[in-house]
């Protein structure tokens, strides 16, 4: 009997794409496609247990070993720096972590200190630290674009996908910090103790991603 693998999937946007990828790997996870409020689901074979969690919580479940495998955005992984294996770039959910603001506003302080609004405290502070720029970091929970508009901040650090939100609010990308995409993450112990189940899955995923 093969061991059951617990897979943490992020609710929302990445979940559909993850399900699509799992299909390509021959895992029938149709229960995941049904409109359900259940948080724990199994695939048809019963070999995989899926838990649906908030996207920013995926690394926590995997780090603590209650999920063996998970799908998480690179933005979340870079921000949280959890101790997990980050094995495959899944090639979907592609976007960029950017500095944005009004065109021509520049990304260095003109006087005093540069005010940066963001949801991503660690990414923003490490980025500006590497550039030797001191900043006033303003942590926001969402709608970060408002920062420059209402005069709360000079620039923002945020995920940019199509750039539509920025455009509609009259903002532009000033600098790109790093490209982002969904990653497959694995608990450091599970990868070894359940390698008979994880390795074949990983090979299939790598194969499916290449296509």
């Amino acid at each position, binding site marked *: 009997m093969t061991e059951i693998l617990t897979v943490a999937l992020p609710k929302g946007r990445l979940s559909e794409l993850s399900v699509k990828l799992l299909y390509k790997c021959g895992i029938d996870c149709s229960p995941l496609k049904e409109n359900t409020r259940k948080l724990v689901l199994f695939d048809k074979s019963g070999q995989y247990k899926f838990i649906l969690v908030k996207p920013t919580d995926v690394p926590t479940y995997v780090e603590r070993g209650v999920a063996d495998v998970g799908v998480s955005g690179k933005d979340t992984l870079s921000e949280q720096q959890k101790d997990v294996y980050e094995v*495959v770039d899944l090639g979907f959910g592609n976007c960029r972590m950017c500095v944005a603001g009004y065109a021509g506003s520049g990304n260095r302080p003109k006087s005093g200190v540069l005010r940066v609004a963001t949801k991503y405290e660690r990414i923003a502070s490490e980025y500006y630290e590497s550039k030797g720029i001191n900043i006033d970091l303003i942590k926001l929970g969402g709608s970060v674009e408002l920062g420059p508009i209402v005069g709360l901040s000079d620039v923002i650090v945020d995920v940019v996908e199509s750039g539509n939100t920025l455009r509609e609010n009259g903002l532009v990308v000033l600098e790109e910090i790093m490209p982002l995409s969904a990653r497959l993450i694995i608990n450091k112990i599970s990868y*070894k103790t*359940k390698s008979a189940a994880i390795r074949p899955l990983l090979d299939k995923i790598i194969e499916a991603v290449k296509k």
Partner: protein
Amino acid sequence: MAKKLKIPYGFRDCLPDECYFKDGLERELSELFRTYGYLKTETPTVEYYDTFHDVCRPEMLKKMFKLTDNDGSLLALRPDVTLQVCRMAAATDIPNPKRLYYVENSFEYLDSPDTARTREYSQIGVELLGDTGIDGEEEILCLAVESFLRAGLTDFVIEIGNNDLFRTLAAEANLSTRDESELIKLINKKDGGGAEAFLKKCGADTAVVAKTVSLIRLFGGKEVFAAARKTIGENAAIDSVETLFGRLVEKGYGKYVSVDFGTLNGYDYYSGLVIKGFTAGHGFALLDGGRYDGVCPSFGYESGAVGFALGTKRLMTALEAIGKVSRVPSLDWVYSSDGRSDKEEWKFACELRNQGKTVAELFGFDKAALENYCRENSVKNAAYFDNGKKYLLRGEEK
């Protein structure tokens, strides 16, 4: 309303049941180490920050709890016992090979409570100092296996790796120290794509990139050695791990041993052998260790060193998960009195205590309350003293 009950995050109380379990475990492991000729040592909780400064990477220095002394010197709470043992060895005349063990708490400064780690953690570990070569490594690996067995784990893995294989490749790629530690992080995350992109950016040639990235998949059983030679070529580090692997198999430990050439120790002072110990169902390593020949020389003492540390609390969690947990046993005896039998009570309790029994007085309990307490707390024996006379309520006095 602040009741002053709060303790800083990452620190914990250890309640009686947990303490009892922990003490028992520490006693078992200490006894095991003692039979291998290891001697217990204690090191100070606080040291000069400078002591660690030259041997630790900046990340580790950042994670030290710091204090200042009266004269303004910077002090640090013990971040790790190994460094202290080497410092101690450099200043003493204990003959080599030195076999030492410790049971101590170490401290790590975490800047956020949102972590699975604690800021104070109990460790029990062994250090073997001297030029003990591969035989010393074998002894430490055997002790690692024996420690888990002695603790009561049945399904566990002792994983062997070697930093030198990576070091050889990093030298071929001509990386700066900074790039090298960046690459170590990527390899430790098994981020193949990331490592490949990073090496290319550093200008490493294609063959070296392929070899280095292959480390990420070089883990598992004995098949790993052939795979490693095929992709990387002959290398002393592969030979050394294979020899150790073979020696452990010979001893009947084969089912507990595995290999991973992609687990690297980020600390500068590790060289060669890397050891990890873990168990299925527990998301964190329980045991960490390896060879750290760089430490003693940094204290002006020419000696090799190899050892490991076990995370006591993590080991306890793993044992609890398989039902191997001990709890404080019920009292053997309880008694109470009318308050006029002091001499008799004292004599009675002393005799039992001299036999090693646990005896506790329940102040002011009448007979009914005493009975009730015994029922609720599974106490087998109870006595009540009335005007100097003893009445047995439960059990039988031997």
